[in-house]
């Protein structure tokens, strides 16, 4: 099968879905009305049959590549071999958006399969900025950097996370991916105000929003939220999403679901709810501007 490569369409300011393996055959076969799709590049780096399916999908949907393994926060720098694999995939799929996380997962070449927290200080800021620049240079693409869910903080952190992200964007020219669920999870876990966090982010740099489910648990008599992408978006996160849109304006939003993955129609209903909230929030924001 030979077809000329075509640049993926730009990702629209609507709610898209995270592409997950079990849904690929249905999406290829029925082409359901989904505004755009986001995928983890690490799942498609073997150049096997999965990639062939993606080349089909990219003809029908705008794509975003959301990396989980580059480890932008690693003091040892980013893995050039992995960066080269990512570049090949970007060249092949021509995604409208490329993103990664404000976290680390590689230490001395060992890959710890999670988004681990950074101390938020000048050394970490310089490290992440250097790695973001290397990534943007290698890909020839502006990237978005996402706030992670966190469960522990460092005693020597000196910079609040939204300011850290704002300064990272200023230094490197990268954009930001605001994960409203992660922001809520971290704020509840550390007793911070999620709206205050949102209001401290630089609105002009927000290129995408993520939405997902978390679960509530109790440890040592204290509430702990764990971000597991295993359920519907929670009500407080929907409320925060509306507030985020009022501040950031129209941006692409994404429903992520990774554990106990439901049928595609459940995800499409979550996306429809996000679109409905966006219409209401943006109408309200327009009226506020007119008044």
């Amino acid at each position: 099968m030979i077809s000329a490569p075509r640049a993926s369409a730009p990702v629209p300011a609507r709610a898209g879905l995270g592409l997950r393996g079990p849904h690929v055959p249905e999406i290829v076969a029925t082409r359901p009305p989904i505004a755009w799709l986001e995928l983890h590049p690490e799942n498609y780096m073997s150049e096997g049959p999965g990639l062939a399916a993606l080349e089909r999908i990219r003809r029908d949907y705008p794509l975003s590549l959301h990396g989980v393994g580059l480890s932008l926060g690693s003091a040892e720098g980013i893995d050039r071999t992995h960066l080269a694999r990512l570049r090949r995939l970007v060249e092949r799929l021509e995604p409208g958006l490329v993103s990664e996380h404000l976290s680390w997962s590689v230490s001395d070449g060992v890959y710890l399969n999670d988004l681990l927290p950074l101390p938020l200080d000048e050394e970490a800021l310089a490290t992440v900025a250097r790695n973001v620049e290397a990534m943007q240079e290698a890909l020839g693409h502006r990237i978005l950097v996402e706030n992670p869910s966190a469960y522990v903080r460092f005693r020597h952190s000196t910079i609040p996370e939204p300011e850290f992200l704002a300064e990272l964007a200023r230094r490197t020219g990268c954009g930001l991916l605001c994960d409203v669920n992660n922001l809520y999870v971290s704020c509840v876990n550390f007793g911070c105000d999620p709206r205050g966090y949102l209001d401290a982010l630089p609105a002009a740099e927000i290129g995408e929003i993520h939405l997902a489910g978390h679960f509530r648990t109790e440890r040592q008599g204290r509430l702990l939220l764990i971000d597991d992408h295993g359920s519907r978006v929670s009500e407080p996160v929907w409320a925060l999403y509306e507030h985020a849109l009022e501040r950031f304006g129209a941006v692409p939003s994404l429903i992520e679901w990774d554990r106990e993955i439901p049928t595609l129609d459940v995800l499409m209903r979550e996306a429809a709810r996000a679109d409905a909230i966006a219409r209401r929030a943006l109408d309200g924001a327009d009226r506020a501007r007119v008044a």
Partner: protein
Amino acid sequence: MRSPVAPSMERTVPGLHELQRDFRAALLAGDAAALAPFLLEDGMSRECRLDVYRNNIRGSLSAVLAESFPAVRRLVDARFFDYAAQTFIAARPPGSPCLHDYGAAFPDFLAEFPPCRELVYLSDVARLEWLLHSAAFAAEASPIAAAALASVPAEETPALMLRFHPSLGLLESAWPIDRIWAANRPGRESEETIDLAEGGVRLEATRRGGTVMLRRLDAPAFAFRSALLRRSALEAAAAAALERDAGFDVAAELGALFREGLVTEISR
């Protein structure tokens, strides 16, 4: 005047590289002594907070192994599999975020893992599952037709070398591991009894049209194909096959490799 500082606060904050090493030790080896002074408790013990990350890492990597080795998991039961997986993850954590590559070393680990020493066939069943997994994820490549052989002068034929479709894999075992695997694969579990005395097998995995196929080969064909796959010249591969069967038809067996769509390149 400096105020007195508590001993734990006197520790110099390590550089990020060292801090990440300490964090890794806390997660993989469970030793948080070096890291703990630099973490805030925020009303909950540091161990409790680190456990969230430990569970995320162990749980997700265990799930990766369980997905690649479902028959091994059924043979030893889920609880033991989880124990073996945790031990493996701590000893051999991934070196790349491409997790479809993670688990290549698991069969060798099982072979050396004392608690399953009595299951003599277990590591070979794991090798078979890895062979099938690798065939499923292997890169795409276009096969060439036997007509390509016409361009090779007769005197150069003995030195011919072939490249194969990346999904092709060969495996030999002293046990009937294909039958053991078939009786324990997901969705097809059976309680049939397999006699280990049936003896060994020589197996070939390939992917055709997106489907992974597994079949047995006889000793001469296995010797021929494995020699070629190891990049031996045609003459040496033919000799290895003829040693096992003086009647081995080299021309026909060479043609079969092309017919089966396995050859992607010939070289001399």
